[in-house]
């Protein structure tokens, strides 16, 4: 646990530069920045196509102070494996001597949908990469279409009357692959998050972090609320903070008293059509309750 106070984070050098083109208040920028502080200089970043990518690298400028590569939308994990494999081979053959952290930053679409297979391959081979999914729960770069990570009830342009299925359980899938390390993260719990990133890159095999990312445009909220929503997601139990390591799942942030999901939903335009719909609310509340039961969170207190 190298990060004990936020000052430990502040003093770390920034490798993510201002002047990028992400929305004001974009949670993906916050994630990228913190990740970069933790992983540091000797890292190579792989980015799948998406908001983060198109808005941080616009020729002739880039917001990345470390080597960065974007190839396509669906292959971030394979690109990472290629780099891992190259560095391993070159070091083994003494053609190079310095190792790197191979770190993927990919959206939920690039992870849960079109990139899932490449990711599964990397997991299965045990490739030593850290894959971080910043999950804004839709295809934001293309204008808010639903993804496999879109939560139940959420409006998107392709779920105009609300998404009918529940979020794909990426952590469950990662754990089913017996990755070395997997964790959820939230920008509202920065120390927890930073320590998880630190742990992830130290693993001798694949690690995965699933990081909820409020998106002002897609979720339809005032940009200033990005952190607040990150916090509420945890407080409601909709986004439990836990980690998987050595075969065991452990809660890392307890929520003794959960907030009702409505508090989280009502701040977001994407749920506008359901915040007065009792049935829908009950459905989402019970989903949160199930998660709470599974991970050992406290009861709801209104």
């Amino acid at each position: 646990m190298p990060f004990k106070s936020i000052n430990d984070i502040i003093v770390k050098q920034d490798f993510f530069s201002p002047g990028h083109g992400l929305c004001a208040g974009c949670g993906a920028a916050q994630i990228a920045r913190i990740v970069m502080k933790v992983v540091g200089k000797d890292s190579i970043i792989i980015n799948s196509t998406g908001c983060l990518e198109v808005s941080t690298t616009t020729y002739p400028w880039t917001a990345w102070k470390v080597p960065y590569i974007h190839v396509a939308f669906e292959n971030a994990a394979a690109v990472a494996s290629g780099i891992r494999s190259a560095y391993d081979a070159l070091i083994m053959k003494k053609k190079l001597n310095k190792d790197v952290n191979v770190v993927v930053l990919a959206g939920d679409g690039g992870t849960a949908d079109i990139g899932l297979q490449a990711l599964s391959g990397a997991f299965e081979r045990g490739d030593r990469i850290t894959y971080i999914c910043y999950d804004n729960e839709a295809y934001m770069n293309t204008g808010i279409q639903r993804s496999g990570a879109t939560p139940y009830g959420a409006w998107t342009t392709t779920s105009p009357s609300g998404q009918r299925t529940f979020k794909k359980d990426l952590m469950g899938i990662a754990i089913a692959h017996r990755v070395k390390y997997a964790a959820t993260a939230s920008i509202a719990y920065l120390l927890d998050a930073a320590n998880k990133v630190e742990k992830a890159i130290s693993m001798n095999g694949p690690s995965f972090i699933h990081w909820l990312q409020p998106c002002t445009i897609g979720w339809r909220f005032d940009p200033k609320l990005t952190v607040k929503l990150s916090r509420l997601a945890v407080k409601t139990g909709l986004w439990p903070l836990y980690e998987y390591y050595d075969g065991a799942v452990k809660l890392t942030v307890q929520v003794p008293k959960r907030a009702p999901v409505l508090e989280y939903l009502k701040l977001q335009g994407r749920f506008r059509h359901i915040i007065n719909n009792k049935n829908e609310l009950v459905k989402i509340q019970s989903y949160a309750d199930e998660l709470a039961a599974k991970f050992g969170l406290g009861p709801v207190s209104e």
Partner: protein
Amino acid sequence: MQIIEPLTLSGNLAIAYAVKQLDVDVVAAYPITPQTTMVEKISEYISKGELKANLLLVESEHSAISACLSAAASGARVFTSSSSQGLLLMHEILFITSALRFPVVMAIANRAVSAPINIWNDHGDIMPQRDTGWIQLFVESAQEAYDKVIQAYRIAEDDKVRLPIMINIDGIVLSHTYEPVYPISDSDVASFSPWNLYSPRLDPDNPITIGAFCYPDYYFETRYQSLKALNDSLPIISNVDKEFGELSGRSYGIVSPFKCDDADIILISMGSISMTVRAAVKKLREKGEKVGMLSLKLFRPFPSKELIRYIKNAKAIGIIDRAFSPGAVAGPVFTEVTSALYLSKMDIPSVDFFLGLGGRDVKMEDIKDIFNILKRIVKTGLIERHSYYIGLRG
């Protein structure tokens, strides 16, 4: 050059042998008939410690090419190989590999594409990749496949080129036929195609961003760079082949004409079929017929000038296409050649011959039939059809 005994290798194994000698660092590939024995052999080399490399057994060809691209971007020497459906699945990333300018070398055991599924040879997989910006070589034998893989790294990694290369070997016909292959020594390979840690690459001491977003302001210019790099690679490819000839005694040219000088009729072909065509020409020459042939060894960049130099005096030209481009004027090779002829203001009667699709065997008689058709054209001055489907039932 040391003189080494011939090996008996299939096309696939000849390539695997070259890959071993080239001390490749990363191989990422996915199995598909008829490419499999190539990767299986490499796997065996690695497991026996004869090649120090990482074999990345990816979950699809899309990931294979993606991993090769990024491994090359990290400075490693990489190899991959595929065929048919697998090659088609790489389609998207092929463009990216060439545009980002990474020297990936890929051997393709050419095979017909689905539907219907068929595991035998034709050029239906490679032709639709002719816009991808890769250098595309075609060979006639296991020996040539071996030689070209060695040349390929030298070309691809050349700072003036920095482009990926596809080496096409006819599936089954070359990939699985055993024949004599004369290798050159490991040290000759190393000195002919030495590995260097090239840059720019993904290096924390010199950070760069690869694959940035591009506004309309820059797209045309950067794509033009790749286009030009590919066109400019032609003399380099040609020189590497010549130098290799000095080393090994074997050089092939980027076009390989045979008896073209005084030929009235010239047949143009690519890949293993050229052998049968050459044999047919020999036989017909024995009968005194003024026929010739030209084997296209390089399809991208397309060697228009070199080609036309040899065929310009012919009275009729036949072009063999081993792939359809349905709805097009004719087959891909024919369209390319005739467009080149048009630009050179030639007007030689030219006919497209489709044959050998999906493994339909190409016999000496088929080639003779083609020459007969062309002879008739020369004689009568009449072209009845622009496309013939040799061996088609119906």
